[in-house]
């Protein structure tokens, strides 16, 4: 082997190695990935580490405050660790010394029935993340397929885009009511109450949120189709399906990534809205959205009940967004290596 050949071999870095090294230079993406990993670890391993049953009603400890509020009561921080129940603080409204209701049994508080918020948050995250991810994937696949087919095959453009308009124009709530009324019990019987509802919700969110992606993708495909490298592929004799997978899909990655990351957020929120309307998971089954809505009633007394699930949703959405951003940059050869 000559030295020139050796140089050739040395230059052969793998594509995914390049992608990873570019991804690592994107600070936001790295932070996002760390945060998302923590959340993911929390919801998967959390319930095994924090063994309190999220459904258990500890009625004597209802409406406890998070432990953090103990540290804001004054100089008795050491007492917070040893015997937090004995701490008293001066309530300026009532003008009396009051006992703060905190306990290490519920480190971030409990709800009006005494259910532990931390356990609920960890348990609920599983459902919310699972719903968010699968619904996003479903709507992404639907939207991309519809968009690519409509953009690439001129004959199907009209029918598919009119179908998209139709879905956009559908009044969602009545539709959801009908779907749930029709299929909830069937699915429950077939897959059990939780899996059945999970499938139903993922399906509903998936088929009602693919339209934006489809429109964006179609537009990009239409523009891309006129580029000369597609003509070049035609002149080579590349069949349509490989033109789509080899030339079109990689080049519309950016809009797909963006709608994917935004889709996770919308899916989590939509799931919570459904639960709120009583159309989603059963009321004793915690999800982040459910916790958020339950907490809004008590926002005056214990804002923590809204802050924790809200924070969890926001952090998830934000970190997924940043990861998507970094991934998009890393997958673009024009940005990579700059």
């Amino acid at each position, binding site marked *: 082997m000559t030295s020139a050949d050796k*140089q*050739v071999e040395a*230059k*052969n*870095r793998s594509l995914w190695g390049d992608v990873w090294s570019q991804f690592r230079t994107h600070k936001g993406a790295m932070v996002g990935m760390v945060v998302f990993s923590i959340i993911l670890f929390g919801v998967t391993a959390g319930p095994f580490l924090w063994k309190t049953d999220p459904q258990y009603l500890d009625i004597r400890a209802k409406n406890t405050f998070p432990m953090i509020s103990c540290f804001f009561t004054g100089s008795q921080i050491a007492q917070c660790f040893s015997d937090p129940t004995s701490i008293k603080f001066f309530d300026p409204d009532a003008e009396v010394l009051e006992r703060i209701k905190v306990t290490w049994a519920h480190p971030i508080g409990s709800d009006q029935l005494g259910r532990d918020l931390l356990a609920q948050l960890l348990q609920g995250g599983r459902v919310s993340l699972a719903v968010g991810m699968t619904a996003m994937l479903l709507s992404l696949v639907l939207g991309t397929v519809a968009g690519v087919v409509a953009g690439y095959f001129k004959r199907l453009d009209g029918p598919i885009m009119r179908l998209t308009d139709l879905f956009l124009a559908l009044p969602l709530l009545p539709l959801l009511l009908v779907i749930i009324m029709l299929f909830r019990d069937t699915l429950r019987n077939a897959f059990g109450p939780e899996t059945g509802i999970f499938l139903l919700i993922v399906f509903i969110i998936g088929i009602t949120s693919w339209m934006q992606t489809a429109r964006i993708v179609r537009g990009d495909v239409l523009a891309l189709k006129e*580029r*000369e*490298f597609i*003509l*070049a*592929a*035609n*002149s*080579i*004799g*590349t*069949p349509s399906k*490989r033109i789509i997978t*080899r*030339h079109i899909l*990689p*080049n519309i*990655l950016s809009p797909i990534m963006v709608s994917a990351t935004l889709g996770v957020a919308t899916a989590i929120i939509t799931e919570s809205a459904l639960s709120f309307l009583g159309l989603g998971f059963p009321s004793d089954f915690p999800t982040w959205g459910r916790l958020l809505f339950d907490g809004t009633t008590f926002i005056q007394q214990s804002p923590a009940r809204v802050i924790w699930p809200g924070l969890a949703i926001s952090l998830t959405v934000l970190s997924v967004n940043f990861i998507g951003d970094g991934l998009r940059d890393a997958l*673009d*050869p*024009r940005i990579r290596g700059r």
Partner: protein
Amino acid sequence: MLDSAEEPLVRVRDLKMHFPIYKGLMKRQVGAVKAVDGISFDIFEGETLGLVGESGCGKSTVGRCVLRLYDILSGSVVLDGQEIADLNGPDLRAKRPEMQMIFQDPQACLNPRMTVGSIISEPLFEHKKMTKEERRSKVAELMDAVGLARRFADRYPHEFSGGQRQRIGIARALALNPKFIVCDEPIAALDVSIQAQVVNLLEDLQDKLGLTYLFISHDLSMVRHLADRVAVMYLGRFVELAPSETLYTNPQHPYTQALLSAVPHPDPAQAGGVDRIILKGDVPSPAAPPTGCTFHTRCPRAIDICKKDAPEWRQIGDGHFGACHLID
């Protein structure tokens, strides 16, 4: 050309390509852009046919029709003894390796998300059963042939200069050992110094591999240098076709004369005496071409008959064809 004993590699007869215009609420067809309107020519093996004309006269459309990148309206295209005008699907695909194209814009004709190696090996992947190693070594061979360093195979198109990108495009076109290559203004987007390199490369490859070119360009000097025969096109039709030297020294059609008089001279002082024929007005719309000879609206020597009858395409010399009432 029509009575030649030798069988041409490419034989085009009465080629027509009209692009329909749809308008209105019901998308009714209200007319057609007659981009190519009845063209016949032959290209013999190993020769270069130059095709020149103004922007928008249909040069590129001719190239794409001959390669069947469009579904042509009517006419016949015979490549290497096989009629390809009505081929479709797998049959056409099987014919693709014999004919390839080099594109005008080397930036736009390469997928920005693919490495140079995968761009060049795409035709191999589509038409040849090869292992990964075989493909890799073939790509390396092709890159040698067009003067690109082998180590560039893992790079992306945006990392190259215009000339290098055009070489990538040429390597891709050569991958399947085609007989016939349509060069669609391959040098128009390049610097003058790079133009010479690319043209020399094309000439070398023709000598080495016995390629046949249809060389589309609006650079008359470059076509003179490269082409064996030259066809001049105006508004979807050929107006003159002749061996290169004949066309440049003895142009018969008024449009060819006007075009050639516009070629800049290397020594302006010496060229001072040359009369430039300035054409007035714009090229008429190919959607509504003028009656009779399509050139009569701008022709400095037009006579009455030009407005009524379209001139016949006929032989006017040895291998010299033209379509004009004034040629006798």
